[in-house]
């Protein structure tokens, strides 16, 4: 057991740091995701990483991965967070990509994997439905085989950034008579197919990130089926495991704590920095201690993974604690900035003539950020569902 980085790892860190300094696109520097106004903004960082060959560190090398050790991956994510780079959107690289290289046929791999890596094709996730959230296996979107096609009818919801997507990976019901989990298939659908309609959902912070996706007699070639018909649930579960493993967001939260402390050093309370206030600094310290424990929980998981053990149900701890910390971070940031967290920071789609936001720049949108972050304990398996998983799979209750 030791915590030291080898000289080679330190050299790697310098290399990453230098790459970021030289390649983080100027046009999106310092912008948050809510300030991105175009597809290009979202993809600028993705494309820089792709050019370098660093877009998919967790993929096997043969498919375009980096071949990094888990320590290198850890260093990479730490450096990205430190530089406040945008997050690479997970839908292609972290979600459908691994499903494709694990379960798809050669032709599908050849067709899709290169375009996921290059960012040429933007993917979105067609899992949740209005009636199927936590109980995902109850999904009703129906795919009926007709010759070389599936005819798909149904509705997906909470589809993140579907407004930009070229393709959607969907869970669809192919056998309505089988037991719930056994009649589901994993289908790739081109968003340009007639019958696919995207309708925006505005969240309470005012953002437009999620959408409803309506599927009305959508003709999907059978060659877009991944793996075997009616075995989609296995692939979905595999993917959910992947989603959880990356969701702790430790490096980002560490960066968030740094920023919070800076804000609290600037904000004044009775002529002294807020960070000198014993109450406030105690809140920050509590958060930091929790984050430190989580960091080592994640490192233990990573170490296990590098020895060939999958993330397993323990990964639910990472999701539960990681999102709790993210939420407390936005909560404390809002508290730190007091009144100036409350003005509404408009989005491009608001088309407001007056886009004035008062107060220091770090305060702008603090309340909205707090509101939006409430979703983290809901999506990707709510905290309640994650606890059920631990209770059942780990504790055997």
């Amino acid at each position, binding site marked *: 057991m030791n915590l030291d980085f080898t000289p080679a790892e330190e050299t790697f860190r310098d290399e990453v740091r230098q790459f970021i300094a030289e390649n983080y696109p100027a046009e999106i520097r310092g912008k948050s995701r809510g300030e991105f106004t175009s597809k290009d903004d979202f993809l600028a960082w993705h494309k820089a990483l792709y050019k370098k060959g660093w877009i998919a560190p967790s993929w096997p090398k043969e498919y375009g991965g980096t071949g990094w050790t888990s320590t290198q991956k850890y260093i990479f994510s730490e450096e990205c967070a430190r530089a406040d780079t945008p997050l690479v959107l997970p839908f292609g690289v972290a979600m459908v990509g691994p499903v494709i290289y694990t379960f798809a046929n050669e032709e599908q791999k050849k067709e899709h994997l290169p375009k996921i890596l290059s960012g040429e094709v933007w993917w979105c996730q067609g899992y949740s439905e209005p009636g199927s959230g936590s109980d995902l296996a109850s999904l009703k979107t129906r795919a009926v085989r007709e010759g070389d096609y599936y005819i798909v009818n149904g509705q997906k919801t909470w589809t993140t950034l579907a407004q930009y997507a070229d393709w959607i990976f969907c869970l669809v019901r192919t056998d309505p008579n089988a037991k719930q989990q056994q009649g589901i298939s994993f289908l790739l659908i081109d968003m340009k197919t007639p019958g696919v309609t995207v309708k925006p959902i505005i969240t309470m912070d005012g953002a437009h990130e999620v959408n409803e996706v309506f599927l009305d007699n959508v003709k999907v070639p059978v060659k877009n089926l991944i793996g075997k018909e009616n075995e989609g649930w296995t692939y979905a579960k595999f993917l959910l495991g992947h989603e959880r493993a990356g969701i702790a967001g430790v490096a980002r939260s560490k960066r968030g704590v740094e920023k919070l402390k800076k804000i609290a050093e600037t904000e004044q309370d009775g002529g002294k920095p807020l960070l000198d206030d014993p109450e406030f600094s105690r809140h920050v310290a509590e958060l930091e201690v929790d984050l430190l424990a989580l960091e080592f929980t994640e490192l233990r998981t990573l170490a296990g993974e590098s020895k060939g053990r999958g993330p397993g149900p323990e990964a639910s701890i990472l999701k539960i604690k990681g999102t709790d910390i993210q939420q407390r971070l936005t909560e404390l940031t809002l*508290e730190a900035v007091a009144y100036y967290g409350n003005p509404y920071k408009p989005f491009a789609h608001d088309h407001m003539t007056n886009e004035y936001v008062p107060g220091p720049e770090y305060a702008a949108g603090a309340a909205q950020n*707090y509101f939006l972050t409430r979703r983290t304990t809901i999506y990707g398996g709510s905290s309640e569902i994650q606890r059920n998983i631990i209770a059942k799979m780990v504790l055997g209750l």
Partner: protein
Amino acid sequence: MDFAFSEEQTLLRNSVQKFVQNNYPFDTRRQIVKSEAGWKRENWKQFAELGLLGAPFTEEQGGLGGGPIETMIIMEEFGRGLVVEPYLGTVVLAGGFLRHGGSKAQQEQLIPEIIEGKRVFAFAFAEPQGRYNLADLQVTAKKAGSGYTLNGHKAVVVGAPWADTLIVTARTSGGQRDAKGVSVFVVDKKAKGVATRDYPTVDGLRASEVTFENVSVGADAMVGQVDDGLKLVEQVTDEGIAALSAEAIGAMKVLNDTTVEYCKTRKQFGVPIGKFQVLQHRMVDMFMNYEQSVSITYMVTLKLGESETERKKAASAAKVQIGKAGRFIGQNAVQLHGGMGMTDELNVGHYFKRLTMIDTMFGNVDHHLKRYASFD
């Protein structure tokens, strides 16, 4: 001891309830919030007709002769409807300043104008550097001839875009954070040198940054005694806290009812999610948070007239309880509604946002815990 409401108070509640039912269905509120003005003057006229704008003023002043309990009833019902019109700023706060500190001339001129709905106020107290310290003032009022000259910047003045007149705290003497040297002024928003920049806040209200550049006011613009305004400001903001607590319990009640109803109807895994014990206990905790908040709102409402220390302790206790409960109830109402709770479409997020802003207003939980502890 008796916690029952009088017949008149019940009638008052019924009439506010009727107003909210008829004029504040959620979709109507959405239209009001999204409109250019951001509020509805027609509603203000109705408040005048219903006598709500005169609730805390004496019958001699033309009011209903009500007290803190009447304000509580009105604010609680407004909280249920998420009413945006500036009742707090105009009737509770400006009305409070005039009732407790106004000269005879100020009372005779301004109170009837409030009651008739002709004059709307906003309270400009916060400053960029001041956090929750009501005495931390860089806005100055310097003696000039018989009157004063105001300079400085007030932050996030809620309701200012709708206001005709501002109640402004300013330093007339002493150091930046001295208790002594705070004075209160009535300033016309149209006065020369007053500039405002307006914007929406996250809870659907509107606010302004207000700057004063050599704004001249007469000696008759001062409310209360020169340099001695802090006591008055604290009294009025404590009354404001009681009113906000009432508004908050109205909002909490809607969130709790909506959540319980949703959990009874939303099915996952073949059963209503309200059948899951972990969610039942969460809703029980939400319910207890609400009940405790109702209790503390009654407590502060009944103690507003007691000694200064008792009143301050009561107000801070209320603000702590309301802040904590508002957060717990708001967060969990969203969580239990799942993705739907995150949407702008559902009312849940809007109540959560209002409760979040109430927590900040006049000091958050930490601030009032400290203030409460400081009296022992």
